[in-house]
């Protein structure tokens, strides 16, 4: 051994030992977290809860005003320190670095179950039980799926939901000689209308009747309209090779091939980037889009005569299918005040006034049924509210590996439309990869 290198070797060893210790320290902290639920909630000593969320500064200001108005009078001893504009990545890093975040609202529901599996979240089930409430009665069921484990345990609560629906341009319908008040009723009609509404000039697509090759999230909606299921709710198995999903993709691709796949791709690729929505610009006659697009069109100051409704389906059995997601509220494991944190989470999730006002502010939908009636004076927005509570409304894949699933799905969809894979081949790969990943979380 070269003794001159000894200091360096010691340094490496020390670092490694330190790193190992860092891990074990976390063990003790994790096991120290209280599991027992205090049956007598009122806190005697004032506590401050750190509350992180993904909303922007203006939205956080409004949220703070609501906290001031609805929370503070009844909970003088639980102060809320809200911080906005933090995404799941930052929360993940902060919490694993030992920073205390008591309550968080994530802008995307996919981390909830994987974080729960990794032990980052407080199981809210015992606290919920103290409320003597049936969650299915309080909340829009589809939004709830993202925070409910198959065994019935809750690792979060829903906060303002969002979904997508069918948009059609009434002016373009008139120009094509179609009744603007009669959107297509089923998939066959959708294809017929799509052909009638497509304009090709000098071999180039000038207007597309139906937005083919949409955002991967929208294609999930299309698959649902064909009756496709992305996982088996009973067994938890991944079902990406569901023939109905493949049928939906084939339908869309075959429509694209009628106009030329390459031409459609180049037309679609022209509309990427903010403020460049082909439907808003009148270049696409029928599309799928989020509930927020109604407000977006209003605020953009464009005059667009359009209608919204449920996506036409392949079979009446799938009528009013739509995919609902939520901004989940979670209580993080390193909180020192799980009881108070739950109380605050419960307040945010269940207060109808907060739900109504905040969902309107961010152009989302209420997660509590009590806030649905008279939610908005805008009839178009109300269409989305009703859709989110339809019997065929659900989360597409509220499973532990949903974030992994969406990246695989996105890749598959891209491969299908660039012609590198058939729908069958692409979905075979998705199923294999996602199932293999899911099997690690047993």
């Amino acid at each position, binding site marked *: 051994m070269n003794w001159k290198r000894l200091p360096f070797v010691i340094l490496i060893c020390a670092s490694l030992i330190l790193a190992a210790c860092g891990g074990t320290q976390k063990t003790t902290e994790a096991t120290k977290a209280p599991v027992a639920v205090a049956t007598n909630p009122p806190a005697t000593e004032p506590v401050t809860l750190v509350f992180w969320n993904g909303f922007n500064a203006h939205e956080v200001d409004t949220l703070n005003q609501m906290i001031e108005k609805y929370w503070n009078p009844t909970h003088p001893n639980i102060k809320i320190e809200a911080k906005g504009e933090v995404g799941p990545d930052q929360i993940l890093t902060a919490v694993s670095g030992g920073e205390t975040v008591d309550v968080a609202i994530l802008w995307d529901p996919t981390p909830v179950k994987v974080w729960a599996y990794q032990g980052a979240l407080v199981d809210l089930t015992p606290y919920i039980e103290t409320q003597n409430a049936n969650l299915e009665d309080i909340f829009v069921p589809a939004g709830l799926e993202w925070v409910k484990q198959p065994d019935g345990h809750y690792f979060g609560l829903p906060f303002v939901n969002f979904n997508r629906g069918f948009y059609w341009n009434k002016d373009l319908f008139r120009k094509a000689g179609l009744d603007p008040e009669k959107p297509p009723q089923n998939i066959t009609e959708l294809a017929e209308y799509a052909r009638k509404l497509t304009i090709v000039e000098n071999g180039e697509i000038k207007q597309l009747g139906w937005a083919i090759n949409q955002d991967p999230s929208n294609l999930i909606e299309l698959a649902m309209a064909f009756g496709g299921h992305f996982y088996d709710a009973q067994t938890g198995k991944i079902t990406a090779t569901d023939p109905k999903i493949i049928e939906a993709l084939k339908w869309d691709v075959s429509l694209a091939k009628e106009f030329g796949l390459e031409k459609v791709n180049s037309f679609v690729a022209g509309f990427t980037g903010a403020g460049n929505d082909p439907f808003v610009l009148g270049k696409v006659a029928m599309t799928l889009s989020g509930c927020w697009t109604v407000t977006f069109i209003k605020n953009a100051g464009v005059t667009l005569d359009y209608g919204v409704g449920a996506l036409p389906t392949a079979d009446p059995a799938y009528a009013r299918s739509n995919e609902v997601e939520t901004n989940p509220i979670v209580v993080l494991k390193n909180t020192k005040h799980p009881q108070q944190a739950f109380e605050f989470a419960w307040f945010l999730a269940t207060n109808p006034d907060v739900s109504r006002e905040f969902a309107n502010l961010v152009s989302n939908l209420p997660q509590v049924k009590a806030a649905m009636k008279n939610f908005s004076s805008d009839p178009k927005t109300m269409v989305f509210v009703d859709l989110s509570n339809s019997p065929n409304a659900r989360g597409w894949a509220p499973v532990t590996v949903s974030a992994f699933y969406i990246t695989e799905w996105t890749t598959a969809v891209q491969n299908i439309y660039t012609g590198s894979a058939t729908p069958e081949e692409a979905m075979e790969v998705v199923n294999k990869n996602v199932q*293999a990943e899911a099997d690690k979380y047993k």
Partner: protein
Amino acid sequence: MLKELRVQKEKIRSLTKQEKRSLRLGLAFISPWIVGFLILILYPIFSSLYYSFTDFASFRPPNWVGLNNYVELFTRDDKFFLSLYNTIFFFLLAMPASVIVALALAILLNSKLRGMTFFRSLFFVPTIVPAVASAAVWMWILNPQWGLLNAALRLVGIHGPPWLSSPDWAKPSLVLVALWGIGSEVIIYLAALQGIPRDYYEAALVDGANSWQRTFSITIPMITPVIFFHLVNGTIWAFQYFTEAYIMTGGGPGNATLFYSLYLYRNAFTNVKMGYASAQAWILFIVVMVATLIIVVSSKRWVYYEE
């Protein structure tokens, strides 16, 4: 090397009291940096080495899994090899292109023309634009329908490809974006060009060398140390390439731009597999190390230093 160390030791031993005091003071002054380096850089580096042998997922205490992460990467993870392939492809495309473009621009900017300062500034401007902003601008430039690039190509009768949404063109598009921000390399080449003694060119002129010969027999050999520097830096950059791909393509279409760092990031933060991502990071470290070593070893053959 060892001899030098021994000499250093001798020197320290033979220091006067005053000198020893200065040394201690000096060390005390740089101690904030040393401590910072140890805690903020060296410790995390070796932590990640430790974590690469665990199933660390940020929250739970990590469990030792031995070589599992490495075994899985090499035997069961198709995307690991794909991302490595994409990265090497990007490196092989971007590296020579950036040397040629930066050098060519520097040679042009070295000519004695009026208003040259303006042009020098012009080519440097992109480097001060934040990556996120330039990525957003480039997404518009590369837009297949309304983008400037395809509009320009249309003028000469070429029907441009859909750039970022084509699996074949996505990587070259990102190389193009990278070349746009080459200003700082241009400045370094320019400084090197101006450091070449004029007498070499005068002597060459006397011998009747044309400008082509002057470039390849004087200019390029004289600035090989800078090319070497650029190669080493560029290699490290190319293997860690992340931001623009993250913003502009997100790894798509069909994983065509799933670069190594992008896949690593996805595993760490989306799939919450920190241990696995740490293993990836260490493999990247070794790959970069080997690539750099090859360049360093080869440099003895082609880098000329003035006597």
